[in-house]
């Protein structure tokens, strides 16, 4: 699926498009001048640390919160003005699942489906059962939600989003609280949705997950969009890295320094029994990688391994959003 052609919509149309979208609470901007573009048919990863404005953006896109500036359009129509026309075509999981604890999973879905005046009543029972089966909750649908685990509630939330065929799915942390099987199933589910032409907008901070399922991604930091594009574009914008495995770590560092690179710390491999790993960032303008090996060998460094790694999405993410663990604001 990755890098595959956009299945639904005409190429070039956007499922979500915002211009200068902003949300202020008092003097603080939760989201600032957001220009987001989610192409139709994409699986779009919406990344950012906690508190970077992801959920606020999703709330504005779904018409739950009003933007204080800028415009947003979803499925080609202005939000929140065309809310009634747009939302029936959008499945949403916003900031964790929430249900009536004293009702069964099935009864909850019936109630939520009945909340929408545009949902056909005649097919409701069938649609609810299909959605429950699709998330693997068929057996537990008769239990009260208060007896559900977090993972089961999450599945029920996904079932709610799947009650009708949707053109866009907005999933806020869809794998939160799921076991590894559940996570795999969600990945499969997203892949099958994308295959059917649904645009999927996934917010997450699990980068590995985004790398596995997404075709496009955007990165938020402190309410601002710091990068967006295809996954390939994002990765290649990061810096490559060379790693040398050698018993002569000191000499290798000297060579790297002579070549104008900044060698990183030496990391022992296999508790220091084997060769050590020396790494250095390889800027695009630096010497070609093969010249480094030549220089190393010429200097008498015993090279046991040499690799050039394009930055992972995680490196790029940390590069864009900063290293610290503290919540930005």
């Amino acid at each position, binding site marked *: 699926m990755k890098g595959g052609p956009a299945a639904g919509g005409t190429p070039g149309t956007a499922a979500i498009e915002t211009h200068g979208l902003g949300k202020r609470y008092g003097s603080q901007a939760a989201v600032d001048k957001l220009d987001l573009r989610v192409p139709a048919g994409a699986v779009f990863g919406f990344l950012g640390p906690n508190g970077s404005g992801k959920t606020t953006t999703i*709330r504005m896109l*779904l*018409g*739950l*919160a*009003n933007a204080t500036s800028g415009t947003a359009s979803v499925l080609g129509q202005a939000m929140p003005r065309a*809310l*009634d026309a747009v*939302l*029936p075509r*959008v499945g*949403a999981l*916003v*900031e*964790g699942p*929430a*249900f*009536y604890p004293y009702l069964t999973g099935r009864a909850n879905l019936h109630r*939520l*489906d009945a*909340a*929408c*005046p545009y*949902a056909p009543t005649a097919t409701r029972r069938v649609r609810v059962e299909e959605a429950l089966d699709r998330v693997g909750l068929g057996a537990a649908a008769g239990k009260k939600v208060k007896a559900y685990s977090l993972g089961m509630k999450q599945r029920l939330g996904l079932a*709610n989003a799947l009650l009708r065929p949707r053109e866009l799915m907005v999933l806020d942390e869809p794998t939160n609280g799921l076991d590894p099987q559940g996570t795999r199933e969600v990945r499969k589910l997203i892949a099958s949705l994308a295959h059917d032409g649904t645009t999927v907008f996934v917010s997450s901070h699990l980068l590995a997950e985004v790398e596995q399922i997404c075709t496009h991604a955007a990165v938020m930091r402190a309410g601002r969009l710091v990068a967006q594009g295809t996954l390939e574009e994002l990765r290649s914008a990061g810096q490559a890295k060379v790693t040398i495995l050698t018993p002569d770590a000191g000499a290798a560092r000297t060579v790297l320094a002579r070549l104008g690179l900044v060698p990183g710390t030496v990391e022992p491999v296999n508790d220091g029994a084997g060769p050590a790993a020396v790494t250095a960032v390889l800027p695009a303008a630096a010497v070609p990688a093969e010249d480094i090996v030549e220089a190393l060998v010429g200097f008498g460094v015993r090279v046991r391994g040499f690799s050039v790694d394009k930055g992972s999405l995680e490196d790029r993410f940390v590069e864009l959003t900063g290293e610290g663990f503290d919540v930005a604001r």
Partner: protein
Amino acid sequence: MLAVLAAVPVLIAVAVRLTNGTRAGHGPVFLDRITGNGLFVVLTSLVLCTPLFLPLTVGVVSGDTIAGEAGQGTLRYLLAAPAGRARLLLVKFAGTAAFTLAAVAAVVLAGTAIGLLLFPVGPVPLLSGDLVDAWTAEGRILLVGAYVVLSLLGLGAIGLFISTLTDVPVGAMAATVVLAIASQVLDALPQLDWLHPWLFSHWWLGFADLLRQPVEWSSFGSNALLQVGYLAVFGALAYGRFTTKDVLS
């Protein structure tokens, strides 16, 4: 809550039955009439429930309408469904009104049943002194029930509005009940008599006028007008607030 409300007439009837014969003259109006006629159980119960029990339950239900959904997080899913904000508000108020009807019906039905069971039933003396037969009296009782339901609609609208202000249902419930009590306290202060006709609780016990021959409709009319006024004002406030609110819960 309905069971508790239904228990009120039962308790009254049983208590009066057990202490049969005392006509001390204390207690609410009609209380000493019960032994003579079972239909007075309903009227006594309504007099007892209207100032506190019924407003309490209506306050709880109306205060929970929006704030309860918000507190539970289900509000965002209802709105994303999309339920439509005005539609949701309308349904919630209809629910509150339906509950008010059910609450008053619980008191009236339980009161009638227990009254028939424990006491003799016969022609009922009205406040104007006329005697009417039991069927006419039951008709009057239903009229009183309708009056009480109408009386509480204003409070329901206030509760609905307060419920749109917060995500904490208990706070909205408490605020609504406190307002109901405060309104009655203000109504009892003679220094504020200019304010009294504007208080939503002013006509709450005015249903006695329905027990005259011929029926005195003026308090019914004034009450209806007042309640419709409260409904319009607080309904509009709730609409204005809820349709522009950021749902962040």
